[in-house]
């Protein structure tokens, strides 16, 4: 009922879909930076989509399992191996007790989400198993994984008396299934992504030239990016005024511009409030792509309307609903 972290790799943490309901107390969302990736991986292994898994940054992770588990992962272009067999993104693999799982350095993108049947079993803190890495609570002692950590896993779905059979059900009949989820969901990383955005809440504080720069120039991700945000360098984005703004809410996807003129694209560990002007907001369906941006990647921004953003959001949830139904038919 556990797995052993033989090597924690560059940066690995326990995450689920994040914390909601505690923003008024300054508690960040945390959670998988690409919630869809974790939801899909969970669905593939017949977990509830809200179950906790691991978020792997830049690879180097090596795990050993102590019992039989089904796993799936989604994210950047990682090479993942069960023993010596490779497991592509969005496929389902079966691990036997004693098997090892390895995530190597990704070619494109920087993060992956691993779902394990039964899920990572950590105490629920403020409604979530996610690690809050800034405030150091949740997940495993509020910190990233280390070599030698022992990670408890939940009971496998259907492993109780009624259905020991489910553990032996024919799917995946082979070690690696041929079944998969849509490519955009399981492998959203692009070397030079185009991120669609809505006008930010402080859009009018920038002049026309700045707004044109935002959509016409390539911005480069700098190495001091982390789960709080991606720092972008390129042409400066000056403001039209220099009024001190009163802090108000920010959220994952907010693009804020500090006095340096170099924008920061906020991700899941961002603060709940901020005082820098918000020039743009990356739309929810593109946050998965944003979570893959790594140092040196060149990002382009492209404006969409609020109506379009909502349509894209709703369409994606409808497709996910169909995918869920498809899986439940598979599981019968």
């Amino acid at each position, binding site marked *: 009922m556990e797995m052993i972290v033989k090597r924690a790799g560059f940066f690995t943490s326990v995450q689920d879909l994040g914390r*909601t309901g505690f923003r008024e107390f300054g508690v960040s969302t945390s959670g998988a930076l690409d919630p869809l990736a974790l939801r899909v991986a969970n669905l593939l292994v017949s977990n509830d989509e809200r179950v906790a898994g691991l978020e792997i940054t830049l690879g180097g992770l090596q795990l050993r399992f102590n019992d039989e588990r089904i796993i799936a992962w989604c994210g950047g272009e990682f090479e993942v191996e069960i023993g010596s067999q490779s497991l592509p993104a969005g496929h389902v693999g079966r691990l036997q007790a004693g098997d090892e799982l390895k995530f190597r350095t990704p070619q494109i993108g920087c993060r992956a989400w691993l779902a394990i049947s039964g899920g990572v079993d950590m105490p629920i803190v403020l409604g979530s198993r996610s690690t809050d890495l800034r405030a150091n609570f949740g997940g495993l002692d509020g910190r990233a994984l280390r070599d030698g950590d022992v990670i408890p896993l939940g009971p496998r779905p259907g492993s109780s008396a009624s259905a020991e059979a489910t553990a032996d059900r024919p799917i995946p009949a082979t070690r690696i299934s041929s079944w998969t989820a849509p490519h955009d969901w399981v492998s959203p990383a692009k070397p030079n992504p185009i991120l669609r955005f809505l006008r930010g809440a402080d859009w009018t504080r920038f002049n026309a030239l700045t707004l044109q720069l935002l959509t016409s120039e390539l911005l480069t991700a700098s190495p001091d990016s982390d789960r709080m945000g991606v720092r972008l360098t390129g042409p400066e984005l000056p403001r039209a005024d220099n009024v001190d703004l009163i*802090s*108000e809410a920010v959220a994952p996807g907010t693009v804020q511009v500090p006095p340096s003129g170099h924008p920061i694209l906020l991700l899941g560990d961002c603060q709940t409030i901020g005082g820098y002007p918000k020039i743009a907001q990356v739309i929810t369906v593109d946050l998965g792509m944003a979570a893959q941006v790594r140092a040196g990647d060149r990002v382009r921004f492209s404006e969409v309307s609020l109506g379009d953003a909502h349509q894209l959001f709703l369409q994606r949830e409808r497709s996910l609903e169909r995918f869920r139904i498809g899986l439940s038919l598979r599981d019968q």
Partner: protein
Amino acid sequence: MEIVPLGDSALIVRVREQFDDAPEETLNEVLQTFQQLRGAAIPGMIELAPAYTSVAAFFDPVDVVKASGTASDIFDWLAARIGAATVPKRRGNRRSAPRTVEIPACYDPDFAPDLDEVARHAQISTEQVVELHSAADYRVACIGFVPGFPFMAGLPKKIATPRRSNPRKEIPPGAVGIGGAQTGIYPLRSPGGWNLIGRTPLKLFDPTKDPPVLLRAGDRVRFRAITREEFESLKR
């Protein structure tokens, strides 16, 4: 009042444009809006959070569409609901008075590396700084930066001090600081640029508690100066 989108799944209700010209009134109005929106339980709303002059509302577009029956104009539908829920209340409809929380604070030099700087800036003695800081009535305008960090209005103008040009990499939990015209308390070990003038033995954030914070927006706060001995015994 102005309602602006914060992306496709959140919006900001800007109740007022300014804070400093009327902090009490602004805060009361913002908190009233926060309570009204909470009470209205608008379908699809996930959570609400007040901050100085505004209230942020986070929603799930799927649930909003289920309730509104139309997939177009999600924002307009929500804005109309919010508008209807926040009609100004008539006088006589009295809100409950904010609670007052007393924060014991030790201004011992060991805990106050920037007390001299604040005194120099105000051109008064360090004792006077402590007196002014512990005699004032404060109000929590917003919780943020890190979980449980109270941004408090009401600092005597005399001791307002600009943030340090070199922020510290690590500030201990409980540190009481002055940042510009505000005072605050660091709940967790964190970096920060405020001038540190004391420390409280109280825990401002505890994720195992419900609610996890000692202070919330709207609370009235007073600091009570305590000795080093009291600090150590309260800490236990």
